[in-house]
């Protein structure tokens, strides 16, 4: 296979990836809730993510969408619960660790691909649900997969370069003959 054909295949892959990476992004309000926590009990949420940029994360934010019921309907959907929270990045480095009162919201930036973990320990003498809510801006271009976007640009540029070099070489060799 000559250099022009390899370049054009790379260019096609790069352009399709560029179109995909620049058009798809995470958006809106994502709520997750698994079971209930007794006093002293801990729960971990694992977030498997691409580097999708800035978001707002809320621990223990009881809402209609997290339970499917109106706020206050479920007796275990408690607020003002003292909890110990720990948030770690894919390299297991602690980003935040503190005692807080729910609902507790904080800004995060997902800038690495991998597993982020949120550990929550219930410090109140009551059983409660502990939803994790992640809020992204509505259709914010910053919430696209940054590494995939970069890779698509590199592939497109490399493909274009190889095609140009291939055509130039063909032209030069053709003239020299």
């Amino acid at each position, binding site marked *: 296979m000559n250099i022009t054909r390899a370049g054009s*295949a790379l260019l*096609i892959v790069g352009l399709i*990836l560029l179109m995909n990476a620049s058009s798809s992004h995470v958006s809106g309000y*994502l709520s997750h809730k698994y079971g209930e926590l007794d006093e002293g009990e801990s729960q971990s949420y*694992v977030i*498997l993510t691409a580097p999708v940029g800035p978001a707002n994360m809320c621990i223990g934010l009881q809402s209609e969408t997290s339970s499917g019921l109106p706020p206050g309907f479920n007796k275990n959907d408690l607020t003002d619960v003292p909890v110990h929270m720990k948030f770690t990045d*894919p390299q297991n480095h602690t980003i935040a660790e503190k005692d807080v009162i729910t609902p507790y919201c904080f800004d995060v930036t997902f800038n690495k691909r*991998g597993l982020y973990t949120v550990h929550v320990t219930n410090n109140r003498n009551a059983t409660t649900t502990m939803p994790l809510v992640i809020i992204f801006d509505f259709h914010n271009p910053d919430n696209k997969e940054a590494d995939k976007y970069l890779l698509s640009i590199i592939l497109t540029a490399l493909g274009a370069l190889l095609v140009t070099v291939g055509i130039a070489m063909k032209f030069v060799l053709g003239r020299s003959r």
Partner: protein
Amino acid sequence: MKLKNFDWTLLKADMRKVWSRPTFELAVGLVFFMSITRVNTLFQVSSGSAGFYTVITETLVNITSTQMLPLVILSGILVSLSFARDYEQGLLQTLLSLPVSRTSIFAVKFVAVVLPLTLISWGLTLFIIAMNYFTAESALLVFQLSFWTLPVTLFAVMFYAGLAALIALALKKTITSTLVTVLAGFFLWFITSLTSDVLGPIADYFVFTPYDAPLWALKRLFGTKPMSEPGLEMNLPPWGFFILIIFYAVVFLVPTYIYFTKMFEVKE
């Protein structure tokens, strides 16, 4: 030794002919475009120890499922180009007059389509999976799981290529055989996409068809839970599905090979 060298030369020449510009570029573009549309932005929240395994296996099954249709179309077109166009242009007659066995010619023509198509499909699948899920913790898992799509894709492509070769040798016309093969592939895809709401209980048996069996081989191997009530697919173990897809891979290939080597005649 000379014969062996000549076979490799023939294979290289045939591959160059079949995959000439713009076939290779179009195949890469079509397969990649269809595959990438099935991969969502990675953002999943789960409880406890999660989910690289689940998310990678689900994506692999989705990609393989999406690739089936372009592979049907491409193998149909390329095999028809390889057999029927050579017949129409008189090249097959020249090849058969050379001191090369018919087995070699058949093998070369078949391999020249099947092998690159499988490698394009698998290579792009591996690229997409690695791009989305490659991290320090998941590197080995990514390669281990992606590897299984290679034999599954190979057997699926062999089935469609075998069907296409039989049609091409029977009809001997490039356009006609291409259309018939693509239509046969579409028909197979359309039938298997019908649900039991439309067809009744007979639709449950579609998991054993050439279109669905490769996907179920992967799903059963990975232990993917069925979306709906488990059906007949749970009655067959993963290796059972692999035997089934190997059977499908040779079901048209063997009669086509016998026809080509024993009965096929080139008319002036």
